């Protein structure tokens, strides 16, 4: 009993000692942030920097508000739910033993309600989070139909835009300028991040991705180094896939101009999109890290994460599209001329 009391005293003395050891500059750098919702775990890259005597931070490439005082941290990060409603998460915590730990809560109206929960952050090991799986799959093992889960993805809303990117976004009108409401392909990277199922087929040294949304077909070349002569830019671009350990790394170029998602941030023709797919050891879960490299429009690379589970009990449904439900109400509301006048802003 005496020993136990002594042990408790020592621990009690040590805890504040460890807390006091941390100072503001220990927060600086790259962290992998993990947030526990009731039903899921979200993962994100948190970058904390000191800029002109002020702390700045970015989550998944997008700016967040940050306050740091000694070993205490507070972050306010925007997000959008699956219906598109924008809300914030307020994270508060402490840096203890090289790890940040705390609680978060949702702020603002959203369709997906989240109960307050725990979050933590550990030092980033340069995107190695998905490469520590022991098994290296055969290329054909990722074939199959995959259904999206709501795990992993923070769905960070605002991004760190260049002036060019900001100027574009300012004139963009969500809904009216969205490609999909008029049945035009949304292209990459949006198609990868949507919640509809998709199918992967591996044959003859190439992967074919069949997306249910908009019935789109995408080819990922494994043995072809560069696009064929005169291959035009497109919403799917030219994708080359190589296995790096247990990750299928797909890099896509030759993209047509499009928007990143409904909000309308631009993806330029110079953009390169990197997707890193990894398969769980039991072959039933597929995970992707999606990074947009487009310096014309983004000061930092936007990041999305997606997870799918193998679903043999479903099929990819056909998707035919009729834009009448977009055009007719617009005509009835007297907005047609406005829409026509905005034609140069759409593609």
């Amino acid at each position: 009993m005496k020993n136990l009391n002594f042990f408790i005293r020592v621990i009690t003395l040590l805890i504040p000692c460890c807390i006091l050891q941390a100072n503001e500059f220990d927060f600086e750098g790259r962290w992998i942030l993990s947030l526990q919702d009731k039903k899921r775990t979200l993962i994100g890259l948190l970058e904390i920097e000191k800029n002109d005597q002020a702390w700045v931070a970015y989550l998944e490439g997008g700016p967040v508000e940050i306050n740091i005082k000694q070993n205490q941290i507070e972050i306010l990060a925007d997000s959008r739910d699956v219906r598109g409603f924008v809300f914030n998460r307020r994270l508060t915590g402490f840096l203890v033993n090289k790890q940040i730990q705390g609680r978060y809560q949702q702020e603002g109206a959203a369709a997906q309600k989240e109960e307050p929960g725990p979050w933590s952050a550990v030092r980033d090991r340069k995107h190695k989070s998905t490469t520590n799986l022991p098994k290296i799959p055969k290329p054909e093992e990722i074939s199959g139909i995959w259904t999206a889960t709501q795990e992993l993805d923070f769905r960070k809303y605002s991004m760190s835009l260049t002036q060019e990117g900001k100027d574009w976004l300012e004139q963009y009108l969500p809904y009216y300028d969205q490609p999909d409401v008029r049945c035009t392909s949304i292209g990459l990277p949006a198609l990868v991040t949507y919640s509809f199922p998709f199918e992967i087929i591996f044959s003859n040294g190439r992967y074919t991705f069949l997306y249910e949304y908009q019935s789109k077909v995408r080819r990922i070349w494994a043995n072809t180094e560069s696009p064929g002569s005169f291959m035009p830019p497109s919403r799917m671009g030219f994708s080359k896939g190589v296995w790096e350990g247990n990750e299928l790394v797909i890099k896509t170029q030759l993209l047509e101009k499009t928007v990143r998602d409904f909000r309308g941030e631009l993806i330029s023709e110079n953009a390169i999109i990197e997707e890193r797919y990894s398969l769980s050891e039991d072959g039933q879960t597929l995970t992707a890290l999606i990074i947009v490299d487009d310096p014309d429009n983004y000061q930092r690379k936007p990041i999305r994460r997606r997870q799918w589970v193998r679903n043999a009990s479903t099929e990819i449904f056909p998707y035919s599209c009729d834009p009448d439900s977009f055009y007719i109400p617009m005509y009835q509301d007297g907005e047609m001329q406005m829409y026509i006048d905005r034609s140069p802003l759409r593609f």
Partner: protein
Amino acid sequence: MLKLFNLVFISSYLFSGVAVGHHSFTSEFTAEKVITLHGDIQQVWFRNPHVRYLLSVKTSEEESVTWDLRGSPVVWLARKGWTKDIISLGDKVIVEGYPGHDGRKMLSIIKVTLSDGTVLIDRAPE
């Protein structure tokens, strides 16, 4: 009582389930409240990119007001058994959803209750 039943019931409350869609109507709808409408189906558009119904709703002054109801794409709903013929012209329904900004008579559908009690939910898989 019947008249009362035909009135528009607009009730705001917090929605606590996992709701869904695929892409945004942020510019069109608000998540600040959920409202419930009682009315008759005037028009059915069961097509992608968005299912759309026009709903005739009687106000307390007995005037008919048309609400524009927007749902998820056909593929999303069909997978849940929500098919083209499940809601037809003239059907009396109760609809719950997110209203349009600035009082616009639009609704992003969360749930439709048919006259036989069948409940259709427009939401993503858990």
